[in-house]
């Protein structure tokens, strides 16, 4: 009787352990996913966006990017290492060129290759309209690296995957 009781307890402990491991790993994944949602919101712009909203968005870059972020894109002029201030400044300038912007992510695949490091492979679709009325509809595959710094998942690398090389 005692033996059966021990077996049942052992099974329960194993189940709780598996559930806890699954729950906490999921939790980290959820937190990383959340960063992509925030990034999407951060980039998106509604027509007639107020200056205050824009200033608030630009200020909150620190919740998304690390102090130093590496960007790699097929357009060489965009590639390089950027500080948080530079990212905020370029983002503010870029946003002024558009009256409407919308960024959506699809097929997000998150992995945790090392402790405190996450990689995300995803499809990014940027649509909008420039202030001159030109329509924008760009889709690219992105490879992102996030690091856990001060208990926050922050983007440290963003790479636009080059599918076709001329």
């Amino acid at each position, binding site marked *: 009787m005692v033996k059966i009781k021990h077996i049942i307890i052992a099974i329960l402990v194993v189940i709780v352990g598996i559930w806890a491991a699954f729950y906490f790993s999921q939790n980290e994944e959820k937190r990383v996913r959340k960063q992509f949602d925030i990034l999407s919101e951060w980039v998106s712009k509604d027509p007639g966006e107020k200056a205050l909203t824009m200033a608030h968005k630009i200020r909150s870059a620190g919740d998304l990017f690390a102090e130093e972020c590496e960007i790699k894109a097929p357009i060489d002029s965009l590639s390089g290492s950027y500080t948080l201030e530079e990212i905020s400044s370029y983002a503010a300038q870029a946003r002024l060129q558009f009256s409407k912007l919308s960024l959506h992510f*699809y*097929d997000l695949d998150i992995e945790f290759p090392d402790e405190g490091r996450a990689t995300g492979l*995803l*499809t*990014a679709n940027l649509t909008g309209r420039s202030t001159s009325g030109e329509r924008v509809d760009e*889709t*690219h*595959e992105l490879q992102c690296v996030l690091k856990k710094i001060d208990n926050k998942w922050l983007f440290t690398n963003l790479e636009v*995957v080059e*599918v*076709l*090389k*001329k």
Partner: protein
Amino acid sequence: MAVNKKIRQFLFPSLTPKFLIRASLVALSAYLFFGYICIPIRIKGASMEPTYRNGEVNFCWRLRYIRSEPERFDVVMVRFAGNRVMLLKRIVAVAGETVEFRDGQLFVDGKEINEPYVRYPCNWNLLPRRVERNCVYVVGDNRSTPIENHVFGQTSLKRVIGGPLW
């Protein structure tokens, strides 16, 4: 009367276990077939005109290169981003070959290539470049756009996921 009964039975079948199993199998097969083997696609853009027109519907046949390797002049689907965005392009050169454009004319390994599928003349110029191992060089049939605006180039064979069904 018997015909009426048969029609009624066809339109409103009795929910017997046998029927439910059959319906589930049909639904599962359709999901697998159209989700992974023969994927419905809608062509967006004019890069393959006049062979494939903007807005046309086709299917991506994933089993096309199971037993053979893609060859020159094959129209292929290149996985561009995630699982949803594909590029429809034509292979003009395979690994080890040198590809070049001179005044709109395609040259492979220095030989002029006849391309009957190209209907719109162009004046593209591209210096010779060798296609790397496990890669193919793909270009769209519509060369009427300036070379800078046309999405083409070398891509990995891993990204070639199939070809259009027709």
